[in-house]
């Protein structure tokens, strides 16, 4: 599966959140969308699952333009985890994960089996599956949200700032787990982050954005060694405990 944004622009009010962007996400790799807050990286994710539609340009899926009737099918092929997880408070962890299975009338045994697989994959404690979201820790919420996004075995997984709401210790642990998860299921992953260290740790390829445009894309090492712009060097410097990153985390 190949998703492509071709010369896409999306405006909110007067400003352009995404400004004539050209990006292709091909299978098998983990891409980090990196940049300061408000640079348009979350909007890119929302465009990819058609939660917002472009004002100009085109989104293509496997080379064909995305049609309105394909949107629900697309969303089932692309798992999307919003910031803070977006778990439904009226459902337990297990019910959150298997919501789509109920909608699609899966056999309960099949849903239970899939739930076990996902809990193992995300290292989620099975005894916490019966808990409601307000009884889970921040790290557990993210894991449940990822399990829910992976239920239908999508070809692509989109994560919006999966680590931003966590305290440092949990954050490091989940970051390492995320890397293991991405490796083990070997599919296309796009992670939105403002943290250079996270991007370097999780992603094969980094797309650095600024003010709705792509500044440079490539492996982190290339960005560091051959920056396309002084902004690249300046932004990568925030990764070493720079004040900008710290300030942004507290946003």
């Amino acid at each position, binding site marked *: 599966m190949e998703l492509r944004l071709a010369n896409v622009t999306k405006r909110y009010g007067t400003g352009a959140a995404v400004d004539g962007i050209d990006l292709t996400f091909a299978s098998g790799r983990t891409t980090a969308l990196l940049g300061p807050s408000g640079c348009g990286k979350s909007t890119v994710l929302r465009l990819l699952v058609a939660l917002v539609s472009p004002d100009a340009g085109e989104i293509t899926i496997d080379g064909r333009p995305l049609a309105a009737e394909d949107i*629900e099918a697309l969303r089932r092929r692309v798992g999307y985890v919003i910031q803070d997880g977006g*778990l439904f408070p009226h459902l337990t962890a297990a019910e959150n994960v298997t919501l789509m299975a109920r909608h699609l009338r899966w056999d309960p045994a099949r849903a239970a089996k899939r739930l076990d697989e996902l809990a193992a994959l995300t290292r989620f404690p099975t005894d916490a599956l019966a808990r*409601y979201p307000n009884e889970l820790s921040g790290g557990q919420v993210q894991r449940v949200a990822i399990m829910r996004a992976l239920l239908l075995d999508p070809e692509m997984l989109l994560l919006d700032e999966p680590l931003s709401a966590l305290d440092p210790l949990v954050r490091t642990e989940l970051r390492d787990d995320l890397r293991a998860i991405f490796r083990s299921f070997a599919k296309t992953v796009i992670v939105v982050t403002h943290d250079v260290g996270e991007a370097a740790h999780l992603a094969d390829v980094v797309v650095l954005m600024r003010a709705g445009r792509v500044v440079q894309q490539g492996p982190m090492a290339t960005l560091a060694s051959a920056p396309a712009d002084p902004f690249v060097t300046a932004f990568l410097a925030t990764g070493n405990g720079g004040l900008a990153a710290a300030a942004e985390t507290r946003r």
Partner: protein
Amino acid sequence: MNRTLRGALLAGLVGAAAGCQASGRPVVVASKSFTESVILGEMVAALVRGAGVPVEHRRQLGGTEVVFRALETGAVDVYPEYTGTLTKEILRKEVADRPLADVLAAHGLRATKPLGFDNSYALAMTEARAAALGIRRVSDLAAHPELRLVFSNEVMNRGDGWPGLRARYGLHHEARGMDHDLAYRAIASGGADVTDVYTTDPEIHAYKLRVLEDDRHFFATYEALLVYRADLAARAPAAVAAFERLEGRLDNPTMIGLNERTKMAGVAESEVAIDFVAANVSDKAIGAPRQHPLSSIAARAGEHSALVLLSLLAAIALAVPLGIIAARLPRLGRYVVGAAGLLQTIPSLALLVLLIPLLGIGSPPVIAALFLYGLLPIVRNTHAGLVGIPEPLEISARALGLPPRARLRLVELPLALPYIVAGIKTSAVIAVGTATVGALVGAGGFGQPILTGIRLNDFGLILQGAVPAALMAVGLEALLGAVEKRVVPRGLRPPDQAR
């Protein structure tokens, strides 16, 4: 309402009534909401029953407007009325150039000959106060503009009541409207000085009142008679023959005595009626079957819960979808919520009177009114619950690939459920309280003992209606609270109640 439409509706209702009687509908006697009318209604019922005709008495069905409308539409077959009320109020425009009997015939109605007594209006004040001020005649009132006047609500507004009286006598007093029986209590307690009385009221003696002479002959005569549907003569001639035997049998002292037995001595109307009829009119008359107080409370509870539950279920069935539509289509939604709010501002009595021509008397108009009142809290809460769903949850539900209807069923309605249940609770409590006015149009319920209690100045009887109504409201709220506990998942409750 326009005349043709009204005619068509009436024809429909009459047709429906005719259809009913073919299947053996009993003769329906009605009475207005005061003791004398109830006693006369009981007499008619006892005589008809004695003639072997099935009969039903809708006691204290309502005021003149309600009962006459019910007679016209065929929901009622016969009730006691007064000549003055017919000629001065109900049929005032029509009797100007035609005899009363012709006008009644044009309405499909007939009247018996007068029963014998004249229950006219008069003004009265306490003997002590009247003596102190030297007031004997109504015209003497003009010299005392400081006197406080209270009138029963009918007299307050009718052409042959206070407006005409004040013009005839040139009075400039302020007057307030009040329930007739409460007005007596206001006079007795010194809260008011002058009130209207009916000349057969036993209170005139009991409260030591001086009836003021109507020196300018304003008040019309109010001879009692029975008005009945013309078709009754063909349908149940034995019934008509039976109640016609009351003609000329009741003079003023007799009627005052009968009223006194109920109002002052606390004897039930049915007993007063059968005693009189059996001794003076017909030894074949059969009194109303006696009811145990507990079984009557149970009957009231049954009527009351039926009113509340039927209207509440109907309100839920319409209001939840309306709330969903309002949340989906914000522009239309404003009008939906606004219209439901507007309905709530209509006073319950006014709404009932508006509904009577459409739905007749008894429980249908009351259920319809409670249903309309119940809409707003549920519509508003459903709307608020759906609109208040946090955006990230909406986005998550859409991003999963759930189609709109599944989102509504699996995510949005469950999240809005606590609000919806709260709205239902509000509607339920409103319905229990408002259903008490149902007694004014013959729907029974706990309003019935309250109404009778006010009429008979029987505090115990008022409590017999008020206490169970309050208990029902509290109980229903507790029941819905338990339902809420079951249907609202733990994750949606505040954390301190979560476990």
